[in-house]
């Protein structure tokens, strides 16, 4: 059965790019897409996906907030942070429980980026 993913990003374009890559290249079923932290939490509850990707800077509830709510409710959740933000905030998200991160910009046209993206997702799926 196909793995499922929920994609949350306040940029519709990036959501679309990610959705296309997950579906076409990685063989995922995109269960839902959202554009803020509140939607992220609702969608996680509704779909219990194998993976949820999370932008950090988002309206209403930001990625860090959504992440900690999800982790509290679903300690086994696999959350992949996809953000241009590095530094303390990212360290904190990883400490809270995000499985890994991918740095923006999304360069699906670059081999290196695609290789790292696939490896990161594979690594997350291996974790319990």
């Amino acid at each position, binding site marked *: 059965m196909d793995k499922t993913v929920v994609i949350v990003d306040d940029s519709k374009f990036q959501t679309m790019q990610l959705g296309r890559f997950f579906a076409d290249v990685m063989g995922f079923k995109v269960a839902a897409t959202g554009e803020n932290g509140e939607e992220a939490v609702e969608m996680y509850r509704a779909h219990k996906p194998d993976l949820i990707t999370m932008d950090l800077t988002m309206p209403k509830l930001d990625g860090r907030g959504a992440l900690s709510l999800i982790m509290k409710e679903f300690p086994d959740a696999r959350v992949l942070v996809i953000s241009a933000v590095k530094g303390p905030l*990212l360290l904190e998200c990883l400490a809270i429980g995000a*499985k890994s991160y991918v740095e923006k910009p999304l360069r699906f046209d670059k081999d290196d980026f695609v290789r*790292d993206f696939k490896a990161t997702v594979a*690594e997350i799926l291996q974790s319990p």
Partner: protein
Amino acid sequence: MDAGSAGFFLIHLDGTVTSSAALAGQLSAAGGPGAPAARIPLNKAFGLNAEQELQFGKWLDLVGKRHRDMRWDKLAPLAPVQEIWSGRKEDEGPVRLAYRKLEDGNGNLIAIAVFAIDTAPSRAMVRQLEEERERHKLEIRDVLALAANPPETVGAFLEDARMRLEGARREWERFLASRARAGENQPGLWQGSVAKSESVAESVGTAESISADESAGQRLFRELHMVKGNAGAFGFESLAAGAQESEDLLEALKHPTAGSERTSSRLTASLAGLRMQLDELIRAMKLIAGEGQDAMTRILKWKLDRLVAGSAELDPARLEPPLRAVIEATRKLPFLSPAYLARKYGNLVERIAHNLGKQVNFRVTSNTGDVHPESFSRVDEALVHILRNMVDHGIESPAEREAAGKGEAEIGFEYVAEEDRIFLRIRDDGRGMDPAVIADRGVALGLLSRADADALDDVGKLGLIFLERFTTRQEADMVSGRGLGLALAARCVSDRGGNLYVYSRPGEGTRFAIELPPLGQKKLP
């Protein structure tokens, strides 16, 4: 940490650091391991502020928890300190820190190794590569400039530049000599003339008259400026850049400072460098001027050899794509654009026409963007005879053309490269030839019998003009003067394994076609 030193450090899980120097001390201690290597706090070792120390602590914590399930490639970039700049200049670059995790056999984290890598040497190498690439680009532009301008014009420019640079060099040496004599009392480089009579007498060689009231600096500047402008106009960018450098140094000497002495010697070197660049170009020009029809190929090959020799130490596979592209481009240089044909034979046509008081437009067309010089230089002689003949005999005088209601005369040159042969077609819109008249002439000259002549078709009759003895010295009729030249043209073409064709009708111009085997082959299929 001393940012200037590249080295090795161990970060222990408790946040303390051991330096490679301390480790080395411990290992070399006589009689087995001595006291444990000294550990110093993280903030001291890396010169961290409080916030950085806090973040480093969080990172170490994360590494401790996640090193098993997160790739190191993901964890290492999150370390709060990636490079250290303290006390470094911009062009030295930072000391880069590379982190590695050290695990025991069971995958337990022991410590984190940090390699401090001084980026200065690699930056110097990158800089050197960039300079090299820039030099290559300039050399290629030189080649293109040499190819793009008629040799006579380039020759005149180079000679002019040589005289100007010679004048500039003498001016500068004179100034240095008189400064050495007069010391501090010497008027500045940019103040009024010092030794008018002397400078005028010695500057006869320079191309422009000398105004005695100019300062040495002004005279120098003017010569350099002319060289720079002309070099730029011809596309000799390296020479222009060299002249610009000398100009800048000269300009800097306007306001003497403590560094003026150094600027002076740099100007001396810059002027000498300019001269070397120019000599190089002059040598290249001589090759062109002295070697006749294959000169362009020779000069391009010569330049190419130098480029390749210059880049011999570089492994092309390791070069960056732009530089590789430049080198690839030079490999293709022996292929010229059809515009080269227009220049080469257009000049000839223009000169002959000018001497005869005629005006002829020369037009080149081609079915390819790459013309190999060899494909026409091997029949250069034939082309010259044919074109000369056309301008001289085919094209009418302006008055005659006007009477016939014709406009400006035109000679067309077409280069057609096919898979198994090359065609060079030349046509004029002149008076043309009458096959019957040619045949009559042939019979009159005893080249063939009346019966044979009558048996020939038009093309056969016209072909008689390629016979060696088909020379008429009678005054202007349609064939007069079509003498030895065309016979030589025909022989030249057949020597190269090709065919020469002619077709013409009275009043409608003449067409020649040279059919040649492809490059590297001696015979037509």
